């Protein structure tokens, strides 16, 4: 796809605009979290109140698939994924995304989504092993009957691939369509796609987190 051109290099590592934007997003999020939790009070200020609402909303959302107890236990993973993805998705709506050097939508780059998917894959299996023990976890692959093993393995390997491609395809598609609309008629026409993006960006972040939580729920379910 789009060749990620290097902005500058640090030693042998090339730094592209996608990387710079992800760093900025991470720094902004960290700053926001620090500000929101700096001096917590029983009667919260506006920022702490907003942060509490966001955390509670996300936790309830995850609890729908994972159950209350595990949702609380593993909340940091899902919260991080959701917040990072949704902020990077929405960064595409800012003017100049993809045009200015050093500013490109991170999730519209296959490397970023692939990295997210690989983290999700490792997380799922690590939690599975930790929750059930290695022996039990490996045995669960033979669960319905042993002949299904190849199919189960393929399914496990396809999951990160589809997670990465879904997120990348949606965001890249949106970016490209907006750009094409801009080429057709620059005034107001790209706005149509931007309004749709408002919805889609949110849904894609939701879907990624939801699928991950389902995978984790499946990996960590303990038999009675």
């Amino acid at each position, binding site marked *: *796809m789009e060749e990620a051109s290097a902005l500058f290099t640090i030693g042998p590592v090339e730094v592209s605009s996608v990387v710079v934007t992800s760093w900025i997003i991470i720094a902004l999020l960290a700053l926001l979290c620090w500000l929101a939790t700096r001096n917590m009070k029983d009667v919260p200020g506006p920022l702490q109140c907003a942060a509490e609402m966001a955390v509670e909303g996300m936790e309830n*959302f995850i609890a*729908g*698939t994972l159950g209350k107890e595990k949702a609380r236990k593993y909340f940091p993973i899902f919260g991080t994924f959701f917040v990072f993805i949704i902020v990077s998705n929405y960064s595409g709506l800012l003017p100049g995304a993809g045009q200015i050097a050093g500013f490109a939508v991170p999730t519209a780059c296959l490397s970023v989504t692939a990295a997210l998917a690989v983290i999700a894959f490792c997380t799922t299996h690590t939690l599975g092993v930790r929750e059930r023990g290695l022996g039990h976890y490996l045995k669960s692959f033979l669960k319905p009957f042993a002949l299904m093993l190849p199919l189960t393995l393929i399914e496990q390997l396809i999951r990160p691939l*589809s997670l990465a*491609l*879904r997120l*990348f*395809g*949606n965001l*890249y*598609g949106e970016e*490209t369509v907006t750009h094409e609309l801009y080429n057709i008629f620059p005034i107001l026409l790209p706005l149509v796609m931007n309004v749709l993006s408002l919805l889609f960006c949110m*849904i*894609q972040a*939701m*879907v990624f987190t*939801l*699928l991950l939580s*389902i995978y984790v729920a499946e990996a960590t379910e303990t038999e009675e």
Partner: protein
Amino acid sequence: MTSGMIALAIGVMMGLCVFGTAIGQGMVASKTMDAMARQPEMAGKLQTAMILAMALQEALTIYGLLIAFMLVGRI
């Protein structure tokens, strides 16, 4: 000649690609509406399930879209 064929292929492929997903998503939406009308108290859960099912189908179209972009680059 070749670029013409590629352009034609993109058009045909995206058409077919969207066709199946459109039918599938329509079915998901209509059945969910049925279920919501029957049991309005389940609406929240159904909505999550509907979005999930739609996202899984949409992934198939997205694969087609990616191939289309790749082909557009070759014209």
